[in-house]
């Protein structure tokens, strides 16, 4: 189902899994890659809030995720953690409405990240704009535990971009933003703007994009 691109991933994972310096990261790298159809694959949809757009300079401010099993988003698996920042928040605080003092209440990244790693073992990760969030996660794992986070990844933004290009539409500015994508599938606007809210919104979008595929399993 996944084709050759996971072969390369599998090889890399095999190489790194014994070199990682955290048991949770080792487990995430060692778990077999999902090889079944969409319906039987477990997905974990992740969203990060960061203090900026550069994984080298900026920090993860909060992490939210939720799992999809058998085509249903299970809110019981939803988690949301604030991360204690090393540097100050900068401009992004206005956007995310977080202040330095609020973020001081968060936990260290080294405490939060293993929880995510436990949750994703054996699953496929889903992001809206995976490149950015995976950049942050990879860098965090490498600097903390000496190995990148090599996981199968799906990206709703990439899928939408490809879909729009395939239908020969020019992509207007902002058309790939999460809420714009949702609107194209008739999904409701949501007011919440935090990592978990966006993770759930992304998960719903993922369901909608793959709607035809779920039909066999969604109500089983």
């Amino acid at each position, binding site marked *: 189902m996944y084709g050759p691109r996971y072969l390369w991933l599998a090889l890399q994972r095999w190489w790194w899994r014994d070199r990682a310096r955290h048991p949770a990261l080792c487990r995430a790298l060692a778990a077999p890659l999902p090889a079944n159809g969409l319906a039987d694959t477990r997905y974990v949809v992740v969203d990060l809030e960061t203090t900026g757009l550069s994984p080298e300079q900026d920090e993860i401010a909060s992490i939210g995720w939720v799992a999809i099993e058998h085509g249903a988003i299970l*809110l019981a698996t939803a988690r949301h953690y604030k991360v204690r920042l090393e540097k100050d928040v900068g401009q992004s605080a206005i956007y995310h409405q977080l202040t330095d003092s609020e973020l001081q209440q968060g936990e260290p990244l080294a405490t939060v990240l293993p929880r995510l790693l436990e949750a994703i073992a054996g699953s496929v990760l889903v992001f809206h704009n995976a490149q950015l969030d995976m950049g942050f996660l990879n860098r965090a794992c490498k600097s903390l535990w000496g190995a990148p986070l090599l996981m199968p990844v799906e990206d709703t933004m990439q899928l939408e971009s490809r879909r729009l290009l395939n239908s020969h539409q020019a992509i207007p500015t902002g058309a790939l933003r999460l809420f714009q994508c949702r609107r194209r599938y*008739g*999904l*409701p606007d949501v007011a919440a703007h935090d990592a978990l809210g966006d993770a*759930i*919104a992304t998960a*719903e979008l993922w369901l909608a994009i793959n709607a035809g595929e779920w039909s066999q399993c*969604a109500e*089983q």
Partner: protein
Amino acid sequence: MNADPNLPEIQSVAAFLRECLPFGDLPEATQQDTARRIQITYLRKGEQIRASSAPYALRIVRSGAVELRSGDQQLLDRLGEGESFNIHGLDVGSEGVVAETIEDTLLYQLPRASYEALRAQFRDFDRHFHSQRNRRLRRAARYRPDSNLLAQPLANHVTRNPLSLPPHTSLQEAARAMTEWRVSSLLVKDGEHLLGIVTDRDLRSRALAQGLPLQNAIRDIMSPQPKRIELDASVFDAVLMMTREGIHHLPVQEQGKVVGIITSSDLMLARQNDPVYLVQHLSRQQDLQSLAAITASLPALMVQAIQGGMRAHQLSRVLTAISDAVTCRLIELAIERLGPAPVPFCWLGFGSQGRGEQLIGADQDNGLLIDNRASAADLDWFRQLATFVCDGLNACGYPYCNGKVMATTERWRQPLSEWRRTVDDWAFSPTPEAVMRVSIFFDLRSVYGDARLCDQLQRHMLARTRRDSIFQAALAANVLEQTPPLGIFRRFLVERNGEHRDEFDIKKRGVMPLVDLARVHALAHGIPAVNTRERLQQLVDARVLTIGDGRNLQDAYDTIQQIRVENQCRQVSAGHSANNYLNPDELPDLERKHLKDAFTVVHDAQEALRSHFRQGF
């Protein structure tokens, strides 16, 4: 349900649940906890959910739309955002219910264990889902808060600014002031401070019987430190205190300050608004002005009665009894003036008066049925009678009928033989316009005079209509022209512009379709009742309607009328005159839901009628 403190709040989902019935009434913590138990699925348009294959869960439409159909493909309901269904619960009542998405739909599923835990823990929540729509509607129609005069707040009956005099006032001055104020008690006050109370009885037994000089101060005879009652107490509290203490006068205080007085005769007077009293009182009035003065208080009576918990159908009976009393009194006043009637006659009430379903602001719809022996000169007497009564009714707040369905119109004031001929004409040539005009006529009742005339006419009419399927079909077609204001996805259809923008006419679009339905069936089956609830009952008894359908229609009727009346109460309380326009956005969620359910019942019944009479169209 215990919440792990490490679990996150799922804001967007909890916020949505808060807007959904009946989750909105759950405690905040329970809403959060419920949000965490939800599973989200997405279905494309045209996918189906069946009890046989889908897991047991409550499904809430987050976006999109779902149609529920019974095993035989009958449309049961159409659900939009925020509405929920339990396919297994629906399947209990009728086999093989299918939910089908009619748009791409995002569904929130609450798994069985969580759903049942909520129902076990929260009574209102359970009640909401107890079965499906019909039972929900039934409870809405039957729910009745406790009520009567005794439960009313005392504040409505308190006399404000009671007579108060300083303690050194002489007995004679006090007696003079009481006489002048026409009161039976006075408060003895030193500035703002209440010292005592003096009543008629104190003047009699403590002053006159003791032979006290008239110059003595009232301080000598007052009852010091009288019992008081709080302004926010109920009438019941006041009656209880009076009975316990053996007193008839109670000072009323608000925040420690005396603001009024309540007496046992005030409480008797409260009964004045009792409709039975009012009907009696009307029949004793000697002229039009005093009749009109009483009917002017009807809007206030309506508000009081509804706030006191009277149901709409009871209120409409009362208001009809009152308009009957006004009509009868006007006829008697006319006879005093014109001399006795030359031949027997019967004053007919049509429309809502005929059905016993009158509310505030109803037009007058009436007619005169005269004995066949009347001569041309006699007919002139009846013309004068009609003019007097119809003018009088108009002055009493029952405006002239736009369609001229009044005894003053010649066609509606005829000897029995002519009436019969008119009925035959209508039945033979049922033009749509004629049908519309006459449908009101079939709801007739004798208000005054010789009821046997009315019976004869009604029998003739039923005999004609019962066997005339073409006429019935024409009547049915007319009935089906007005549909409940529900659009696709059960949204309310409202006026787009004009004076009543965002509103709809609940009488025209809600009440009348149901009344018309009941009438068509009644006429087709020779049912003599004219009251809508009675018609429905007799149709069930005659097995024209199933018990279930009959009850659903009755509940729908009660629900719509109740919401209509409560809307009028809000209008009157806000100082406007009562009309039938309603803005659905101003209704509480639950009422809006009940109203939609009721309209759905009416709509389904119209569909059934449409297919029944299709051959005749």
